[in-house]
């Protein structure tokens, strides 16, 4: 999908630290994290709640400032950017998906999806075409005129995904995208994530859900603000067409 897959990593974070000041006391959330994500990679970040995984992803997208460490996005140093600099970088290179969908409540589905394109400076015509394409891809073209409140959770999250992809970002960041969905809607969103990943989209995703994490190429486990494991998910050496029984028996 990308014209030329360069060898520049999409993300290169080194020694990333985040310390909150709570009532004058320093509370470290992320304590020295290094991460490199290559183009087209799908990385899942797991860890118990409070392990700093959301903070980490927020820092990668500039939603929170780092206390120390470096962040390079697409070969460009990003951690030194101002709040506005980050905002501009985000609108061009980063798409965000959140747990609670966070569609702009006043705006229709169509407006929500067009907003990032318009923000990026696209013409209204171009933004509309891109929106029509994305909503068609997600099977939501009929809901274009609906208000977010009229959609189910799964539909809202699909719209949020379309919005995140509106500017064809280099990086898709997702924070518990299925955390608030039932299993059927989770399946729909997962299918979509798999699809965009196969098209070459780089994804970094925080999740608790093993089904979501199992789709990733690589799993990063955080514990107490530090990476305790970072490795690809191996393919099991087993005959194709194995059954659930095999699997259940294997680990049971």
């Amino acid at each position, binding site marked *: 999908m990308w014209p030329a897959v360069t060898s520049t990593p999409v993300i290169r974070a080194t020694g990333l630290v985040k310390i909150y000041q709570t009532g004058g006391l320093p509370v470290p959330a992320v304590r020295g994290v290094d991460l490199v994500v290559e183009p087209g990679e799908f990385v899942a970040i797991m860890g*118990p709640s409070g392990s700093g995984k959301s903070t980490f992803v927020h820092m990668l997208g500039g939603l929170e400032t780092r206390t120390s460490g470096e962040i390079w996005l697409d070969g460009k140093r990003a951690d030194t950017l101002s709040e506005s600099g980050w905002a501009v970088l985000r609108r061009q290179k980063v798409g965000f998906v959140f747990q609670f969908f966070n569609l702009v409540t006043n705006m229709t589905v169509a407006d929500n999806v067009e907003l990032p394109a318009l923000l990026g400076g696209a013409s209204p015509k171009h933004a509309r075409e891109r929106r029509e394409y994305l909503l068609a891809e997600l099977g939501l073209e009929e809901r274009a005129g609906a208000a977010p409140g009229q959609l189910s959770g799964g539909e809202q999250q699909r719209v949020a995904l379309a919005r995140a992809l509106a500017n064809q970002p280099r990086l898709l960041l997702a924070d518990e995208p299925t955390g608030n969905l039932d299993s059927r809607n989770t399946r729909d969103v997962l299918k979509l994530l798999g699809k965009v990943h196969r098209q070459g989209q780089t994804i970094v995703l925080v999740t608790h859900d*093993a089904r979501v994490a199992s789709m990733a190429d690589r799993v990063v486990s955080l514990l107490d603000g530090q990476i305790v494991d970072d490795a690809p998910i191996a393919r099991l050496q087993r005959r194709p067409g194995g059954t659930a029984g095999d*699997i259940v028996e294997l680990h049971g």
Partner: protein
Amino acid sequence: MRLPLLALLAKEPAHGYELKQALEVTFGSAYPSPNIGQIYVTLGRLEKDGFVRAVDVEQSNRPNKKVYYLTAAGREALEAWVDEPTEGPRVRDEFFMKLVLAPLTGIADRMALVNRQRRHYLSLMRDLGELAERTDPGNRVARLLIEGAMLHLQADLDWLERCQEDLT
């Protein structure tokens, strides 16, 4: 295997191959299909225990086949099985033994154990996901079976997380 066969026979008398087919149709690819030998061995044992009765049926151009009927004792055993609550998930876990005991010996590091186990579970989960995609969406029994396996895995992963938090 014994009791599912009794259950199938409670519906109608059948011969061994018919039983194998019934199992496959019901559970689909989600469940390991038993081989025919296993089924005949089990049926033999059931007959010896008096739960089933075999009747030879003559066939015109083939060897006689055995059709199995459920006996009264068999029905009783089946009813007892159905009435009795099923045991919950296992509490004895081999991985847990490793996790607790291995570090004592200095052979392995707990963190590494947990990480390896997690990756393994995630591989399993991916397989299940792929299996689910291959499974006919109309087969509800199969789907539920896969979902059950996934939920167990999720629970195992959550538990792994607890282990990592508390033991390392």
